[in-house]
């Protein structure tokens, strides 16, 4: 699925959720056996146009996430490619066991899409935040976990997911105005990290919304003579260990950055791998703390926990 910089700018304006809605709408044109499910959050998932255009491909299960996953399983078993969306905690925790049994244990071809993951739900608060969703999904065998870095990557992920015959958890961070990372088309493959920026002094491994913030941090550090590489690890599971091997061989301190708890997400996954390699560099995990976080505007929350470019740059400077 090719994208252009111009499209990415337009999608960025609409934001992550609306882009998901657009992507699945485009996918429906080519996908005969696509089924799209929602748990009374169709409008919130940017799916109103999909519902109107492909009513036969859409099912609303009402406010019943556990049932949604079970229903998705039945459909998948009978040959549909199923996308089911809701907010992160409701998919990964309310319906955790259904996810585990149907997507993990039975390896059924369901893609769950978590809209508003991380802290972008702002004033809706902790009940709606995705603080630990990647950690939980990562721990389930057979699960693939992807966190797109910008709207173009959301589109590419949706298209790639449709061709990928395994269960997947797609974690959408960012909100309206999700900043552009990719100004041009690029090669996207599930499980293959993308080096967005090369560098020689410090290695950043980031995912989702934090890829853009890492690039901002890298710009700031560049001006101070510190050369930072930024690797977009969009697929948190399976981790691209070959890309990590390259970072290990560079021998520079590694920083992982995610809009997720530092417990169990990207940082933990990277640290798990690297700690088994002799003479490997230190891994510093930057992310949300092991707490329920404050409630505020989205950017305010990110700033509170040091997750915007300038703050990331400061953290890196202090540690190296």
């Amino acid at each position, binding site marked *: 699925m090719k994208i252009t910089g111009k499209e990415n700018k337009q999608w960025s304006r609409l934001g992550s959720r609306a882009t998901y809605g657009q992507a699945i709408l485009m996918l429906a044109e080519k996908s005969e056996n696509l089924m799209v499910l*929602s748990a*009374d*959050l*169709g*409008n*919130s998932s940017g799916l109103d146009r999909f519902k109107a255009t492909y009513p036969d491909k859409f099912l*609303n*299960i*009402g*406010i*019943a996430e*556990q*049932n949604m996953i079970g229903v998705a399983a039945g459909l998948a078993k009978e040959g549909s490619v199923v996308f089911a969306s809701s907010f992160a*905690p*409701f998919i990964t925790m*309310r319906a955790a066991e259904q996810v585990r049994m149907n997507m993990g244990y039975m390896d059924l071809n369901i893609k769950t899409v978590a809209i508003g993951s991380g802290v972008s739900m702002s*004033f*809706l*608060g*902790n*009940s*709606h935040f995705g603080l630990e969703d990647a950690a939980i999904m990562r721990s389930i065998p057979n699960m693939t976990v992807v966190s797109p870095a910008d709207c173009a990557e959301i589109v590419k992920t949706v298209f790639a997911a449709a061709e990928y015959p395994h269960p997947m958890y797609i974690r959408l961070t960012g909100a309206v105005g999700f900043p552009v990372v990719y100004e041009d088309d690029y090669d996207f493959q599930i499980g293959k990290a993308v080096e967005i920026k090369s560098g020689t002094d410090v290695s950043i491994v980031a995912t989702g919304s934090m890829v853009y913030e890492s690039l901002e941090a890298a710009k700031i550090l560049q001006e101070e003579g510190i050369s930072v590489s930024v690797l977009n690890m969009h697929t948190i599971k399976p981790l691209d260990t070959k890309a990590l091997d390259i970072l290990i061989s560079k021998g520079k301190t590694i920083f992982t950055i995610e809009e997720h708890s530092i417990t169990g997400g990207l940082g933990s996954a990277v640290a798990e791998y690297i700690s088994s390699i002799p003479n490997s560099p230190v891994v510093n995990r930057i992310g949300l703390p092991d707490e329920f976080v*404050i*409630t*505020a*505007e989205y950017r*305010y929350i990110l700033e509170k926990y040091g997750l915007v470019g300038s703050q990331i740059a400061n953290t890196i400077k202090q540690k190296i």
Partner: protein
Amino acid sequence: MNNNELTLLAKKSRVQLLELAFKSDGPSHLGGGLSMVEIFTVLYGDILNYDIKNPEWEKRDRFILSKGHGVLPFFIALHNAGFISQDVLHTYKKNESDLISHPVMNLELGMESSNGSLGHGLSMAVGISLALKKRNNFESRVFVVMGDGECNEGSVWEASMSAAHFKLDNLIAIVDYNKLQSDGNSETVMDIGLLEKKWESFGWDVISLDGHDIVALNDALSHRGNNMKPRVIVANTTKGKGVSFMENNNTWHHNRLTQTTFEQAIAELNL
């Protein structure tokens, strides 16, 4: 308060609610908040036993807003009752405030539990009701407000089944039956069927009434049952009640008031 005073308070509360939402300069769950104004007015104006100077008073009634996004009338009721001061009320949806889009547990401010994810409150209410009975506290009652969309959640029915099983006659549930949910008309999204009959078949005492009728609400909520059954009040309401352009208009499920729409709404209420 008598019923006339409650009616006046409900009217005032609607204005306060709109002002609160407008001041917050962002979207609020207006529709589903306006549908519950009479319910909250009667609960906090007359029914609930509480002591604002002693929020942990053992003999207090417990209230849980399981329909967590219904905070607007809740905060207004808590303010009018004296739990939330004017200053604190104005922190609604300000960065790092105690008053956000869902209740966050804080007994000082009158909030018994944290909510936001639907389908949790009734279970906690069952637990509290059991605890009260164990301690021989036969005065306190436990009240839970839920949405009809919320009744899509299986956990509600687990709790419902257990409440009847444990014979919790100190537990009163109120369903804000406004027949709409986030994606639209409830019958179209996920048809709940005969809601009253479902509760009845789960072993509850069911009262069906007009959820904007203060007299009926007061009557239904004051009566203590003596038949060892939990009670549910299915309150037939209108989402967006009180503001003509919001009534049954689901674009007001979660939306922001502009200067124009705020003025129009207030003008209607002040007639």
